[in-house]
């Protein structure tokens, strides 16, 4: 273990941070319409001006006018609302769902928010009437609503009602130049290239707004210093920092953290999008940290406290989703994804003291944000693996683990240059991106392969309501061989892909018309050079990610069909077809056969795993034939976040023995829970057969371990060894839940005692007690790897 690792490992918790954390969690979450009021006013004032200017002006006005607040004791300040964890109503995205659900937000099953009583009449009388018909959602619905509904059973088109997030801005540049420096760059570019479409004008307006925002915090801190003698010194410090940042880039570590936070608050105020990632913070912050340590202005305990202060901030912005949206992304994940470790351009290990301070902060706080991701590779040092393992063993589900050996080649495969691929990071839950130069458009759509298989077996008839929903290529009874069945499945998939792509295209274009993002464009490489907004293809890389759902159910279903219907001929095709039509009613014997007499994905059985791989490969290959509206490729994601529950609700009984409407396999490439009973090594080998290069948009594997394993040094070392094997097997991602069933049952029974308990839902961590009951049950049901007897 390196000396500094030993030192960081022994750092204690900070009382200040503990207190701030407690206060934060105790504060009631409200729906906030403050910014909506400002945006609406500015839009009324700017009728007839170009969209980017209206967007820029309304953001600038919000930055100047939004009520702001500093809590005494805070070391990093700023938020997009004056209350913490507020659900921001963002009219440009879409508010028709708010119109329907406003009164039920305080009582709905997932992600509740209180509503200020004065906001209800304002919303109904002013906000909604003004925006109705003008929002992104309205425009998308008007243009593709009907076509999207036609394919909705198989394809869920996303990003229809909010601006696109899942972006890692160029934080390094923001810190190096500051808003003032970028403003100069903008002015120079405008002088050189002209500004016929007023792109530069819009960007400049937002940068000026951001500077004003920082200055307001500087002023507020100074005023508060007078009234809070106990905190006077540090408030004056904060004031000095905020004021300085309006005119120059940060010089010290504390300044850099504060500057970073202002960047992210402003991005969220502009887009209200899910997930802007700080990315490889341990890399670009290292110069500031190193300098301060060297000149004696900073020590490890102080650095940790500052980092934890920022970590708290990452938890203060949550995302207001519709009731159905909250079911797909339960627990308001917002995805401040921080990557640590990994490698340098020359292939050497990149971990440094900050990597370990981040891990320590995670261990101390055990909060859902940031979404902490550790990058591992062949030469990752032992101490990094062991500390990651130990922190995972604490149970908050973080860090999640990414594997350079799989990710870098996968990104190379979709046209990412070598000089960017090694510097990849993660956005949202598990989506892969380059740093600071990409609009990756993750989650453009979710493609339910399991539903496509259902329609293949039934002649295009939806098992749940009998409607005609897909191609009629015959039914299970007509396919004479397994190969014929597979051929029909292929056609069914291709049919829906062909219908899906134009709709994704349209959504992408409408974003470029309605939610242009001038501020974001200032921190995404190439936008300024090209003079083009990021939503219109200004970024250097322009990808679109579509999720294939869910290879485990596909592999298990096809394996059962192949074994029992075609190879062993133990089950009549017509009997099986009727059984799934009847949701196995009165057919428990058959269902048990399907469960027990055919091999299952996740048990190191090559041919079954290969079935999963084969269909992912087909899907990925087809996608690659299309390019998106911004000129970049479509590629495949193998992660469902928490969507396996609602996606499953949409699928009838399946030949893998699954009942209708029950969840699909969790994660993305996990096995169906309870069906992988050959231990974790077998699961990992199975998963490794789905070529990670196919999931270049990101993959997700959940594993659950008993806390017993982490009780001894030796257990932790063995877990680390398993991570090493995972790296060798070239699987892109894995994450761990570590707790016993009893822990979770207790939390369901006495939620008030377990408010703090965080679990890994999908590619993100959420408070267990804040999840809806069906999702809680599903998490409990996932296979646990116990300590060996």
């Amino acid at each position, binding site marked *: 273990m390196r000396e500094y690792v030993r030192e960081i490992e022994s750092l204690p918790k900070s009382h200040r941070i503990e207190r701030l954390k407690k206060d934060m969690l105790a504060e009631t979450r409200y729906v906030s319409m403050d910014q909506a009021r400002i945006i609406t006013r500015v839009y009324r004032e700017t009728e007839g001006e170009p969209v980017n200017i209206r967007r820029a002006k309304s953001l600038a006005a919000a930055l100047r006018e939004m009520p702001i607040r500093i809590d005494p004791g805070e070391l990093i300040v700023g938020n997009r609302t004056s209350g913490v964890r507020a659900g921001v109503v963002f009219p440009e995205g879409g508010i028709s769902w708010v119109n329907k659900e406003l009164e039920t937000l305080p009582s709905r099953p997932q992600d509740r928010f209180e509503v200020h009583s004065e906001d209800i009449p304002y919303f109904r009388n002013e906000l909604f009437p003004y925006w109705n018909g003008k929002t992104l959602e309205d425009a998308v619905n008007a243009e593709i609503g009907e076509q999207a509904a036609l394919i909705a059973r198989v394809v869920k088109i996303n990003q229809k009602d909010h601006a696109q997030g899942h972006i890692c801005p160029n934080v390094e540049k923001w810190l190096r130049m500051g808003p003032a420096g970028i403003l100069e760059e903008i002015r120079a570019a405008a002088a050189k290239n002209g500004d016929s479409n007023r792109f530069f004008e819009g960007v400049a307006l937002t940068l000026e707004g951001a500077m004003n925002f920082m200055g307001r915090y500087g002023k507020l801190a100074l005023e508060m210093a007078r009234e809070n003698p106990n905190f006077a010194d540090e408030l004056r410090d904060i004031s000095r920092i905020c004021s300085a940042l309006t005119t120059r880039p940060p010089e010290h570590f504390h300044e850099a953290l504060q500057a970073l936070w202002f960047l992210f608050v402003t991005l969220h105020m502009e887009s209200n999008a899910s997930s802007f990632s700080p990315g490889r913070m341990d890399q670009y912050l290292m110069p500031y940290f190193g300098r301060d340590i060297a000149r004696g202005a900073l020590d490890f305990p102080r650095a940790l406290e500052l980092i934890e202060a920022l970590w708290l901030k990452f938890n203060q912005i949550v995302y207001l989703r519709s009731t159905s949206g909250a079911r797909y992304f339960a627990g308001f994940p917002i995805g401040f994804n921080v990557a640590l470790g990994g490698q340098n351009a020359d292939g050497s290990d990149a971990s440094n003291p900050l990597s370990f301070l981040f891990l320590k902060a995670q261990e101390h706080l055990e909060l859902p944000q940031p979404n902490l991701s550790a990058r591992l590779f062949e030469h990752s040092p032992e101490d990094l693996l062991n500390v990651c393992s130990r922190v995972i063993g604490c149970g908050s589900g973080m860090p999640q683990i990414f594997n350079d050996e799989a990710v870098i080649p996968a990104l190379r495969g979709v046209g990412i240059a070598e000089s960017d691929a090694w510097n990849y990071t993660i956005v949202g839950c598990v989506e892969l991106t380059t740093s600071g130069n990409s609009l990756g458009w993750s989650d453009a759509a979710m493609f339910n392969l399991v539903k496509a298989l259902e329609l293949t077996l039934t002649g295009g008839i939806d098992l749940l309501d009998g409607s005609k929903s897909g191609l009629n290529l015959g039914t299970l009874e007509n396919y004479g061989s397994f190969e014929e069945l597979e051929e029909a499945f292929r056609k069914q998939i291709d049919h829906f892909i062909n219908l899906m792509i134009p709709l994704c295209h349209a959504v992408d274009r409408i974003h470029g018309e309605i939610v242009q993002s001038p501020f974001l464009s200032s921190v995404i490489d190439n936008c300024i050079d090209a003079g083009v907004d990021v939503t219109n293809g200004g970024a250097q890389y322009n990808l679109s990610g579509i999720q294939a759902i869910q290879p485990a159910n596909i592999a298990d279903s096809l394996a059962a069909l192949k074994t029992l219907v075609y190879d062993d001929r133990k089950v009549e095709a017509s009997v099986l077809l009727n059984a799934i039509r009847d949701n196995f009613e009165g057919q428990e014997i058959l269902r048990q056969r399907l469960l027990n007499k055919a091999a299952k994905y996740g048990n190191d059985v090559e041919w079954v795993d290969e079935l999963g791989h084969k269909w992912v490969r087909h899907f990925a290959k087809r996608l690659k034939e299309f390019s998106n509206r911004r000129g970049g490729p479509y590629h495949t994601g193998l992660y469902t976040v928490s969507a396996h529950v609602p996606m499953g609700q949409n699928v009838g009984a399946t030949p893998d023995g699954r009942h209708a409407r029950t969840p699909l396999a969790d994660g993305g490439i996990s096995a169906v829970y309870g069906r992988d009973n050959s231990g974790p*090594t077998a699961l990992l080998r199975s998963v490794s057969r789905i070529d990670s290069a196919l999931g270049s948009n990101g993959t997700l594997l959940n594993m659950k371990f008993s806390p017993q394993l982490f009780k001894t040094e030796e257990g932790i070392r063995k877990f680390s060894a398993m991570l090493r094997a995972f790296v*060798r097997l070239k699987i892109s991602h894995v994450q761990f839940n570590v707790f016993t069933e009893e822990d979770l049952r207790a939390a369901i029974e006495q939620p008030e005692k377990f408010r703090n308990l965080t679990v890994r839902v999908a590619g993100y961590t959420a408070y267990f007690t804040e999840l809806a009951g069906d999702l809680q049950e599903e998490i409990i049901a996932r296979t646990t790897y116990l*300590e060996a*007897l």
Partner: protein
Amino acid sequence: MIFGTIFDVKRFALHDGDGLRTTLFLKGCPLHCPWCQNPEGISPKIHLCWTPSRCIHCGICVSVCPLGALSRKEPQLDIRIDFRKCDNNGLCVEECPSAALSFDGRRVSAEEIAGEILRDRDFFDVSEGGVTLSGGEPLMQPSFAAEVLRICRENGVHTAVETTVSVPRSAIDAVIDYVDLFLVDHKFADPESHKNILGADRKPIRRNLEYLLSRDARVRIRIALIPEYTATEDNLRGLGDYIRSLEPVQPSVELLNFNPMAENKYRLFGQSWPISRDAGRFSPEEIDYFADVLRKTGVERVAT
């Protein structure tokens, strides 16, 4: 081809030697420890067994058995197996839809099972782990054990054998060249207890242990801490006195915590569990105490 009878393959085994391991459990054991953790491993023969929690009471098994070995006990519809009639033809296992019927072991060739073990080579490599043969008493099937170990060793996999060495010298000679580490169970210092409780003499076991040491085999002695049986100060002191005297190299000792989980298995096999119902695992402090007893007798390396 050499065949053997096994009852389980456990991948990701964490407590059967160093690193990540795959443990292969061979059937048959000459001892009869009353607290045995793997009671299905005692008999060398394969038996049909029925897992009530899996059974959906469809009755298919009863109707397919050509020998009338199965019957249903009303009203719970429990399946009764008449082992005098059953000839292990497996028809019921084949037809049982829920896998409630299964055999408690299987015959496999050494090549086949070694291939299965080698699947986890990536995990062995990164952890300095490997394969462990356990049981039952793995050296009851010496040529099969030797062949599995030989193939694994040939493929660069570290090999360990967990044994009571309560076997003929020839069995030890069959495997000794293919074993990197012997994990030798030694339970009782007192010859009377050894004989009465385990059903075997202490003397030949100690002789075999000494023989292993004389052949320069790497040996780790494992003492399972069983409440009321082995986990007493007297017994540990007695074992310590003996271990201290061993030559040429004093072997290391590993104390294994008691695992009450096996009680479930006993219920499954309809046997009574010999340990007090409320006996749980020992606390870390208690384990340290036992380790100290050993250390005080002069045992140099004690791991817990």
